[in-house]
């Protein structure tokens, strides 16, 4: 609760400053009420009366220092997101991406970002290309519209959920998302290119041993590729994030040991809806080297800040023009 209050103060500082006059007069600041209604896994619930849209500003950094060598392939990645509104309406998003990897472990992902997590893109969906070469320690974010290749800082490490506490301390575990990433040299923090230097605690979710369940789903073949499935169910107790009843988040994951990648996944969370990801048209074999190189007609830039500020400026001007 304390953490939530800190965060509320952090993000609401400017807003509260604006409403300080009203507070002085005895007015009460009304906070948005969140009604998260629990349901069975797979049930969909949208907590906002309207869908929240986002603007893609740019790539900040890339991470991953363990290249997958000797397993080249190309495929089409299809992601479908479905959200159910409180009034029974349904919002769906479908996006395709071309993904490939060569035998050296270099990867390329080309997609049009129409949605990210629970948020759809507000304006024109930007097309982006991510190229990653873990062995060389380089990564690029290509902007096909502007013909600019932004060289991204490449961090080393892994992101994972870390459980703190023990059964001895009341059987509760505080599960928060933690990173173990070695920042790129010359970068002060993980997102040093953006000047990040400080962090605040985020609301962790208190989970007991019984709240996290993982079960095997056996083996199944997708597009001619055998994969092993697991289902993880995380149940957040009532009151974890202000919810009146428990919230169940279910993740099904089918992993191919041959390709060393996930070929299909299905995530259901009443807060964000359902997301289904699958690889189709999987082609095993070496990929052209040119796919993993910056095209010669692109301008390479290493400083991420100016393009981001420029993008912000364009969005701001567009907003003012509305």
């Amino acid at each position: 609760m304390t953490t939530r209050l800190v965060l509320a103060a952090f993000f609401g500082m400017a807003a509260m400053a604006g409403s300080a006059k009203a507070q002085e007069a005895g007015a009460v600041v009304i906070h948005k009420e969140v009604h998260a209604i629990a349901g069975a896994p797979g049930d969909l619930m949208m907590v906002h009366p309207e869908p929240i849209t986002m603007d893609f500003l740019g790539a900040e950094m890339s991470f991953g220092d363990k290249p997958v060598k000797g397993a080249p392939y190309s495929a089409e990645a299809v992601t479908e997101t479905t959200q159910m509104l409180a009034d029974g309406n349904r919002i769906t998003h479908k996006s395709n991406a071309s993904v490939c990897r060569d035998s050296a472990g270099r990867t390329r992902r080309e997609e049009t970002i129409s949605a990210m997590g629970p948020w759809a893109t507000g304006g024109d969906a930007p097309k982006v290309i991510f190229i990653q070469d873990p062995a060389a320690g380089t990564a690029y974010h290509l902007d096909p519209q502007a013909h600019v290749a932004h060289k991204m800082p490449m961090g080393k490490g892994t992101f994972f959920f870390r459980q703190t506490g023990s059964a001895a301390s009341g059987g509760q575990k505080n599960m928060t998302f933690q990173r173990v990433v070695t920042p790129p040299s010359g970068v002060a923090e993980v997102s040093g290119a953006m000047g990040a230097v400080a962090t605040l605690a985020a609301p962790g979710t208190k989970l007991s041993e019984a709240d996290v369940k993982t079960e095997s789903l056996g083996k199944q073949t997708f597009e001619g590729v055998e994969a092993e499935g697991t289902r993880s169910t995380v149940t957040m107790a009532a009151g974890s994030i202000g919810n009146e009843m428990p919230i169940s988040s279910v993740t099904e994951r089918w992993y191919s040991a041959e390709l060393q990648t996930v070929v299909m996944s299905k995530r259901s969370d009443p807060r964000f809806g359902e997301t289904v990801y699958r690889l189709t048209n999987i082609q095993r074999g070496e990929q052209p080297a040119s796919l993993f190189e910056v095209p010669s007609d692109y301008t390479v830039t290493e400083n991420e800040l100016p393009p981001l500020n420029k993008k912000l400026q364009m969005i701001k001007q567009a907003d003012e023009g509305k």
Partner: protein
Amino acid sequence: MEPAAQGEAAAHAKTCTRCARRLANEQNLSAVMASAVREDSRRLAPAAVEQTLLAEFRKQHAGSNRQRTWSSRAGVGAIAAALIVAAIVGLRRAPEQPAPPIKQAEARVTLPESPVIATSAAVASKSHGRASQRKAPRKPASELLAAQREVMTDFIPIVYDPEPIERGQIVRIRLPRAALATFGIPVNEEHAEEAIRADVLLGEDGLARAVRFVK
């Protein structure tokens, strides 16, 4: 000191031992200083040295005058030439390019979004106004970078994926403040539509795993 006041002070010094001692010390100091001035006034440099110094000074002064005159004339000439060229070019181009409408001339330049944390230096600069901003020395790049520091939350999971994420990207997005409510963070309804920035952690599959909010 006026004679009347001087008389009063002398009379007081006769009755006050402390002031009498102080007066005597000051009179001694004045006498020593006057003696030193008298002695120094008799010490003069040889006439030959003075003549040499004067001749050298006049020589250098005349040279710098000539140089200044030449450079100022050249500067005036260059400016005049530039004005003539500009006038000719302007006259030639005037029929082809009509003057921009007033609306364009009044168009404002929108600055990039300012850093989110106001440093003490920035606050001080604002409080001193424009004059102090003009006088402020140019800050080194490291200071400017420090001024653009951001405060952010830890990553908050969007999905609870038990598998570690070994490869992926962190991208920056902009979204309404109302999005905070999804994560149990209270949102002021009056400002729910205001934009905030966030970093989204994408896995190798491009799916969003976690988000952190940036200020």
